[in-house]
C-alpha cells in the first residue's frame, strides 16, 4: 500500500504554494475581493505560466497531461490561498472539451485554455437549484433560448459549456456576443457568479458525459474545501499563538485549545477522502460517482464548520471585512452550495451505495 502523493505531486503543490504566497498576500487578496470583477489578470497569467490552468489538458494540446488527482491536489492549494478567479469553471470547461470535443474544437481551444489566454466557464444550474444533469431543462438546439443561473465569470469567458435538457452538453463560443449576462452580488467575491440568458445563441453539441463533468467539479470542490478548511485552522492557530488575554496567549486556554483541536480532528482526516475521490475518478470507475458526491458533501460541510468555529475563535476581529478570514467563510458557503447542496449529494450517496438493496 502506498496511499500517498508522489514526489512530483508534492513538488507541484509546493511550487503553486510558492507562487500564491508571493502573488496573493492577504492585502492583495482583499483588493481582488473588493475589485469590480474579482479577476486578477496578472495572477491568472502566472497560474497559466505555471501550468495550473492546463493540468488535465493533453500534452499535444499544450497542457501537462496529468490526471484528476494532480488537479485536485493543486486545487487544494488554490483553496488554501483563497485564490480568486474563474479557475473552477475554466478547468471544467477545458475538461468538457477534452472529453467530448472534436479535433477541431480541441485544437482551437485547448492550447489557449491551457495557458490562460482564454477563459472558459460552465453554465449548469437552472432555477430551483437544479444543478444535476437529469434536472436540466434548457432545450439544447443549435440555437439556445432560455437561462442558466450562477455561472462563474460569464462576462470574462471566451467559451461556455452549457448543460442542456436530457443531460447533454453544448459549446457556446465567444458568449460575450450572444449571451446576456446579469451580474449578481456574489457572497464569495473570489468566485463571481452571474445569471445568463440565451436568445437564439448559437451553440454546437459536445460529446462526453455531463455526469463525468459533474463528478469532476465535485472532486475539485472537495479539494478546494479541504484546502480552505486547513487555512482556517492555520489562521486560528497563528492567532491563538499571538493574541493575549488575561496575561497569556489565548491558545493556552484549554477551552480554545479543545475547540481548535476538535476542528482539526474534524478536517484533517478528510484529506484522504478527497484524494481517494480523485483517484477513483481517474482509476476506479465503479466508485467514482459515489465518492465524488461523498467527498463534496462531507468536506464542504467540514469547511463551513471550520470557518464558523475559527471565526468565533478569533473574536471580534474576525467579524470585520478588513481581517481576511471572512474570505474563507464565504468560500465555504460557496463550496457548499455550488453544484448542489450537501443533502442533495448525501441522498445521491445513499442511492449510489445501494444500501436499500438486500445484501
Amino acid at each position, binding site marked *: 500500500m502506498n496511499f500517498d502523493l508522489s514526489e512530483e505531486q508534492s513538488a507541484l503543490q509546493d511550487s503553486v504554494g510558492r507562487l500564491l504566497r508571493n502573488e496573493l498576500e492577504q492585502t492583495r487578496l482583499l483588493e481582488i475581493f473588493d475589485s469590480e470583477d474579482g479577476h486578477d489578470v496578472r495572477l491568472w497569467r502566472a497560474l497559466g505560466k505555471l501550468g495550473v490552468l492546463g493540468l488535465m489538458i493533453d500534452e499535444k494540446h499544450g497542457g501537462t497531461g496529468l490526471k484528476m488527482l494532480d488537479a485536485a491536489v493543486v486545487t487544494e492549494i488554490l483553496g488554501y490561498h483563497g485564490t480568486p478567479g474563474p479557475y473552477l469553471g475554466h478547468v471544467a470547461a477545458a475538461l468538457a472539451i477534452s472529453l467530448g470535443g472534436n479535433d477541431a474544437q480541441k485544437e482551437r481551444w485547448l492550447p489557449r485554455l491551457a495557458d490562460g489566454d482564454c477563459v472558459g466557464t460552465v453554465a449548469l*444550474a437552472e432555477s*430551483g*437549484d437544479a444543478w444535476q444533469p437529469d434536472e436540466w431543462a434548457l432545450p439544447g438546439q443549435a440555437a439556445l433560448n432560455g437561462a442558466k*443561473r*450562477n455561472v462563474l465569470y460569464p462576462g470574462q469567458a471566451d467559451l461556455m459549456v452549457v448543460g442542456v435538457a436530457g443531460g447533454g452538453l453544448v459549446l457556446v463560443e465567444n458568449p460575450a456576443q450572444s449571451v446576456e449576462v446579469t451580474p*449578481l*452580488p*456574489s*457572497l*464569495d467575491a473570489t468566485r463571481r*457568479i452571474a445569471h445568463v440568458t440565451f436568445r437564439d445563441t448559437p451553440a454546437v453539441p459536445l460529446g462526453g458525459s455531463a455526469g463525468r463533468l459533474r463528478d469532476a467539479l465535485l472532486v475539485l470542490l472537495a479539494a478546494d474545501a479541504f484546502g480552505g478548511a486547513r487555512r482556517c485552522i492555520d489562521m486560528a492557530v497563528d492567532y491563538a499563538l499571538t493574541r*493575549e*488575554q*488575561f*496575561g*497569556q496567549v*489565548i491558545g493556552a*486556554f484549554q*477551552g*480554545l485549545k479543545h*475547540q481548535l483541536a476538535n476542528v482539526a480532528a474534524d478536517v484533517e482526516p478528510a484529506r484522504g477522502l478527497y484524494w481517494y475521490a480523485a483517484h477513483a475518478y481517474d482509476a476506479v470507475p465503479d466508485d467514482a460517482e459515489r465518492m465524488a458526491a461523498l467527498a463534496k458533501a462531507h468536506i464542504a460541510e467540514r469547511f*463551513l464548520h471550520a470557518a*464558523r468555529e475559527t*471565526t*468565533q475563535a478569533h*473574536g*471580534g476581529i*474576525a*467579524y*470585520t*471585512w*478588513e481581517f481576511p478570514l*471572512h474570505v474563507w*467563510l464565504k468560500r465555504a*458557503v*460557496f463550496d*457548499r*452550495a*455550488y453544484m448542489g*447542496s*450537501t*443533502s442533495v449529494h448525501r441522498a445521491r450517496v445513499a442511492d449510489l451505495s445501494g444500501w436499500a438493496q438486500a445484501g
Partner: protein
Amino acid sequence: MDLSYGVEYEAFREEVRAFIAENWSRRDARDPQRVTAFRLRATAAGYLYRNIPRRFGGSEQPADVLRAQVIHEEFSAVRAPMEIAGNGVRMLVPTLLECGASWQQEKFIPPTVRGEVDWAQGYSEPGSGSDLASVRTRGELVGDEWIVNGQKIWTSRAQLCRYMFALVRTEPDAPKHQGISYLLLDLHQPGVTVRPLKQITGQSTFNEVFFDDVRTPADWIVGRRGEGWQVSRATLKHERTGIGNAETYLEQFAKLVNVARSTARNGRPAIEDPIVRDRLAEIEGYLQAHRYSTFRQLSMNLAGRNPGPVTTMNKLVVTNLGHLIAALAQELIGDASLLLPVYEPGRKVGNERWMNQFFGSLGIAIAGGTSNIQRNIIGERGLGLPRDRTGDAS
C-alpha cells in the same frame, strides 16, 4: 403548575389588545411621528418603560413580569413599537437607575427614553475583549474635568450615538479591577474620532473610537472612582438578559418554517421532506425548552427564589439555537446562499436575507462575551467548578 396567566392577566391582555386596536395600525410603522406619538400614549397607559419613574418619562409601574410578558406578546403580535431599541434604553438607563446620581438620572434618562439621544457601549479595546478588566484607555482628573485618552473598538453604532458610557482606567496604581471608572462621554466634541469598521456583512455598524484629550465633567462618573467594574457588571447583566430573550427566536423560527413551506426539494415543498421536518423539530425542541426555561426562571424570580445554574446558560443557549437555525437555513435557501444581501433601491432581496442571520449568529457568539467565556461562566459560577487562575470570566 398553572400556565394560564390567570383571570387578572387575561383581563389585562384584553385591555392591552383594546388599546392597540384603538391606537395602532401597521401603516403607522412608516411614519416616525406616529411611532413617537404611539410610544407616548403607550407609556401614559402604563405599557412601556414600566420600571422608569414618571418624572424621567417612564410609566412607573409596579414590577410585574407577567404583565410585562403579556404586553410583549401583544405588542409583538402586531409589531407595535415597544421601547426605543439601543444601548441607551437597554443598558444605560437601568444602570443609572441602579447606580447613578439623581442629577444624572434627571439629565440623561428622559432624552434617552424619548429617543433623542443614544449611547454607545465603550467597553472593548484592541487589547481588551474577553479580558475586559484590562482596559487601558486613561482618564485623568484635571481640575473639574476628566481628560480621556485611548481607544475603544467594536463599538456598535458609535457613529450614530451622541454619548458613550465607557470603562476608563482612572487609578493606574490600583489592582486591575479596582482601577476602572464608569464615565459618561459626549462623543460630539473635538478629540473624538469615530472610524466605522466594515463588517463581515459588508455593512458598517461597529466602529473604532479614538480619544485624544477628550473632556468630560468631573461628575459625569457613575458610581465612585475605581468602582467602574462593579457598575459595568450591572450593565452587562442587562445586556445578557436582553440577549436571552426567547421571543425573537420564536419569530425567527416561524420565518424559517415559512421558508420550508415556500422552497422546493425534490420537486415537493421542503416542509414535506423528512430530513427538513426532523431538523425543524430538533430546533423546535431546543426552542420550546428555552421558552419554558425562561418561564420557569421568571416564575422563580417572582417568588423570590433562585432558578439556579440555568441563569448562566441563557446566552449560550440562544447562541446555539442561532447556529442550528443558520445551518438549516443554509440548506433550505440553497442557491440563494451564494448571494450577499444588498439593500439598495430597486433591488429585490430574496432568501439571501438569511445570510444576515448566518453572519449574525456568529456575531452573537462573540459580542457580549464569547461562547468560551460563557462556558467558563457556566462551569465556574453555574456548576461551581474551580475558577481558572487566569481567565476570570466575569
